[in-house]
């Protein structure tokens, strides 16, 4: 084995003219590891990812040591403005001209689907953190290049949907953001609800970044459903929750925020958000390790990180470790290592990237604290349950990804 490795290294350095000392450590294309963070820097999801996600990636590079085989590791970032076409152009430019080896974050499901397809075509690693559409590891999977890291619509529906139906919330009406992510979330949660014995009474689809939700909420109210599932995210979720409280809808019906991160809770305020159930993959106040990382992040960004920021850090670090272990930044070799190596850091314990690209890790059911229960700024969540990764995420046997589909 060792002899083979040396032989390969010698061959490599002969081919590229590198010094032997360097080649023994590893080989990089273009003499640099360049990581692209593609996110929404200024729109509705800027707080969900945005500059915080870029900082998280930079922190991972710092913690790794800043150098790979003596060469520099760089982080570049771009604002996709929530437009898949812009995302596609930027990514294409990154891959073809700017020698970017891997892109991370890629929030907004429309963006994530476009970028993942491009990675597949160009044979470059694309890691999706902030986007949740389960299509990324199903119909639109890219097992050889794509990784879906944080959560997906199936896991979100699974954890919160099951818990609520069990609690008696057995009739649902969805308020759905009218694009890929919203549709996936509505469909996947609806299936969980039905499988658990509940009913889906209907849904209304609203455009992304709607200002006023009262019309839609009134329709949800008319439906008479016990639970109004918010299949939207960011500012849309925040405004839905505010309007629901204002119109007194929450007196008779309950809201289920299917995708809500701590930054959204912070924006709504505990007074309005208290009692809400939500699913997250990470919370800053879980153990000493998460608290320590969150503090470092807060020192720089002046606010606590959400689960998306933590997952960008973890994914970037895992990628760097895999490049180091593989001794090259070649896509196939790095992906092999990323699949093989378990993920143990402040974000996940024994996380595993499955063959279909799904990163399987534990998910948590939280309830938002009341203002009286909250002892400090950002002290927002009560842990209500931990769902093992294998139970939260779709099993490989049910995959709709063509490579793994069992007919």
């Amino acid at each position, binding site marked *: 084995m060792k002899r083979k490795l040396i032989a390969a290294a010698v061959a490599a350095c002969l081919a590229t003219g590198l010094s032997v000392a360097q080649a023994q450590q590893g080989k990089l294309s273009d003499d640099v590891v360049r990581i692209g963070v593609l996110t929404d820097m200024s729109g*509705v999801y800027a707080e969900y990812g945005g500059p915080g996600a870029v900082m998280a990636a930079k922190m991972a590079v710092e913690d790794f040591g800043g150098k790979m085989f003596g060469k520099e590791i760089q982080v570049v970032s771009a604002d996709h403005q929530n437009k898949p076409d812009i995302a596609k152009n930027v990514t294409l430019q990154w891959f073809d001209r700017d020698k970017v080896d891997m892109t991370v974050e890629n929030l907004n499901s429309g963006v994530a689907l476009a970028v993942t397809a491009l990675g597949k075509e160009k044979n470059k690693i694309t890691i999706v953190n902030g986007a949740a559409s389960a299509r990324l590891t199903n119909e639109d999977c890219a097992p050889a290049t794509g990784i879906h890291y944080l959560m997906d619509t199936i896991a979100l529906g699974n954890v919160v949907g099951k818990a609520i139906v069990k609690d008696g919330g057995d009739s649902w009406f969805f308020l759905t953001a009218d694009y890929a992510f919203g549709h996936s979330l509505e469909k996947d949660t609806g299936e969980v609800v039905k499988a658990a014995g509940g009913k889906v009474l209907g849904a209304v689809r609203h455009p992304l970044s709607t200002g006023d939700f009262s019309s839609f909420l009134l329709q949800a109210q008319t439906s008479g459903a016990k639970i109004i599932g918010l299949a939207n995210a960011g500012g849309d979720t925040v405004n839905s929750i505010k309007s629901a409280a204002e119109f007194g809808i929450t007196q008779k019906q309950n809201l289920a925020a299917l995708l809500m991160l701590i930054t959204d809770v912070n924006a709504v305020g505990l007074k309005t958000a208290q009692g809400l159930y939500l699913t997250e993959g990470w919370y800053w106040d879980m153990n000493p390790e998460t608290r320590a990382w969150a503090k470092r992040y807060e020192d720089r960004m002046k606010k606590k990180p959400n689960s998306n920021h933590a997952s960008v850090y973890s994914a970037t670090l895992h990628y760097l470790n895999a490049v180091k272990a593989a001794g090259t930044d070649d896509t196939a070799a790095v992906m092999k290592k990323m699949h093989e190596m378990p993920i143990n850091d402040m974000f996940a314990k024994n996380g595993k990237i499955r063959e279909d690209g799904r990163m399987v890790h534990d998910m948590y059911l939280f309830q938002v604290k009341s203002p009286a229960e909250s002892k400090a700024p950002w002290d927002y969540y009560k842990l209500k349950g931990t769902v093992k990764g294998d139970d939260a995420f779709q099993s490989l046997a049910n995959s709709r990804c063509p490579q793994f589909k069992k007919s």
Partner: protein
Amino acid sequence: MTEIFGVPIQAFMGQLTIGLVNGAFYAMLSLGLAVIFGMLNIVNFAHGALYMMGAMFSWMLLKYADVNYWFALVLAPVGVGIVGVIIEKTMLRWLYQLDHLYGLLLTFGLALILEGAFREAYGSSGAPYDAPDVFKGVFNLGFMFLPKYRAWVVFASAVVCIATWYMIEKTKLGAYLRAGTENPKLVQAFGINVPLMVTLTYAFGVGLAGLAGVLAAPVYQVSALMGSNIIIVVFAVVVIGGMGSIMGSILTGLALGIIEGLTKVFYPEASSTVVYIIMVIVLLIRPTGLFGREK
């Protein structure tokens, strides 16, 4: 249950009411735009940013100085008006003789700068702002629950709109204003300080945006981006109503609020585009807008 086009009548009435509330916001914002365009010939693209500032100011007053809603209702529009005076005195006044396009570009740039600055300082998720306790709770209208605060918004906006219309169309001051925009030299010859009047008109127009911002603060999330979400719709309202027509912008604002509300029932996916479809149709049939006059 009785139905209208397949929608239960109760839900239908509810949607109409909500449309009216949103229309009240549109009316108040487009009113300010119409005043500024009618009197100054400036296409004020900074209107959305100034509306956002009205909401932001009231939030900041509460957070940093513990000043409540009622005082904010006066102070925030005055603050926005002062910003307006600064903008007019230092920048806009050099552009009156030039094409509309220059004023549009300048104010658009200002809007981007203002929004960028607030986003940098306060983030994009925004902050909550509570309605005063008097307005907590809902009115039971039989067919729906109307939050008291929204009823207040409709009332306040109606008062402001009617007062503005009356002042400009029916009072002596309004007559000076209108004369000043038709022929500034002549009006000045009568001993009226036209430049001051113009400055105050701009300040008043953006003050209206600030007031709409304060009224909107408890309804929507107070955030740096709240203005950019609404400004394009408001411009469409002004164009449909007829640029510069005050009554036109008020009535169109209310009507479009209602039409948008109904679209959310019958075909929700189109609710963000229906306003523009109407705009296209109106411009094809009446290029000067519904209430506009040929100059």
